[in-house]
């Protein structure tokens, strides 16, 4: 699924990465605990999280993620935006809560972890 499509489904604001909206993600992952993200997420996944701090971007950097979407109207501060830009990580924000965001993406065909890596 392209970032473009995701933006449409979740009515996202693009905070970093306006020029990379053709990027594809294969799997969705909704999680607020970074160790769990580090333990099982793969580079082709998009992270949806309600956690908006610098470690969210650091975690994405270490796991080689291309996209992070902040849910429930979390506006990142300037430091977070700058780090995402430096690490070339696409940063989106939606006002939807996590449940609705996951639900809508899943309904539109984005797979979960155990489905994609069967």
């Amino acid at each position, binding site marked *: 699924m392209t970032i473009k499509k995701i933006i449409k489904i979740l009515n996202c604001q693009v905070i970093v990465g306006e020029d*990379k909206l053709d990027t594809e993600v294969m799997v969705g992952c909704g999680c607020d605990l970074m160790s769990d993200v580090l333990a099982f997420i793969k580079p082709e996944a998009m992270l949806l999280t309600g956690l908006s701090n610098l470690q*969210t971007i650091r975690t994405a950097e*270490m796991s080689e993620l291309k996209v992070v979407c902040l849910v429930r109207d979390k506006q990142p501060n300037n430091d977070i935006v700058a780090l995402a830009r430096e690490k070339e990580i696409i940063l989106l924000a939606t006002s939807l809560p996590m449940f609705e965001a996951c639900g809508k993406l899943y309904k539109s065909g984005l797979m979960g972890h155990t489905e994609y890596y069967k």
Partner: protein
Amino acid sequence: MVEKRDITKVQELVYEMNVEQVMIKDIITVGPNNLMSDLRDLLRNKRISGVPVLENDKLIGMVSIEDFIKCLAEGKMNSAIRDRMSCDVEVLYNDEPLVQAVEKLDRLGYGRFPVLDRKNRKLVGIITKGDVIRGLLKKIEVDCHEEEIHRYRASHVFEDIVADKTTLTFQYEVVGKDFNKAGSASSGLKKTLRRMGISPKLIRRVAIATYEAEMNIVVYAEGGEITARITPREIRIEVADDGQGITDVRKAMEPGYSTAPDWVRELGFGAGMGLPNIKNCADVMNMESTVGKGTQLEFTIYLDERGKNDSQNNN
């Protein structure tokens, strides 16, 4: 070749770079008493579209190809430049950020601006849209090229060393309780390993394990140090902190076991998965802790065939 991702880079560069870095310094000028007909060869041979007019080293006007054509149409090529130039000259200063130049070029629709030195108001250059674009492209190229050089040099570092055994050591200081700086050591190590040409899969394992260890220092200690020792065969990471120490090391290794305070849990860490994560990423891991003194953690990731059998971890 300019790629899409370079566009944001350009946006940053127009703020970072200044007018002086892209302007043409080798300027052609005319005097006010020269005749308009003198411009003919200048405009044609030098392929320039406008010339600053100087009197006693002071910029007093600009004369453009449009002025020249008008004069030609009126048949007044013998008039002095002083009478045909535009005196109301918009200028830029050498230390202004490029974004000012872009904005001014765009807003006023002029093809070029003379550039003055901020201090002595003397003409030091001239800038056109083309100069801005050329300057930006060159900078992007240089930046890309520099990273390439870093990568080339770092990836060949072992080849140039004559020794029976070689170990590269990198050290990173970690400040406790500083949640904003946390992760910068791991980030630096990751960047270095990438430059060394180590496979992305292995880098990812090193980065994740080191990051978890770094977070542990930040959360549980006042400070610590991460040392990476790299040989052609393996990467060994040693993590030492001055924290409280761990009472029950075996229990600390159990997934989900945590003594993290609430503030840490609310920041998305401290759910008891850190050490199991490190163990999963590493080929070998060892931890020793003395209560009241601190903790030493050590793990190794193999770079040669010993590391290929890494099916136990799914990173």
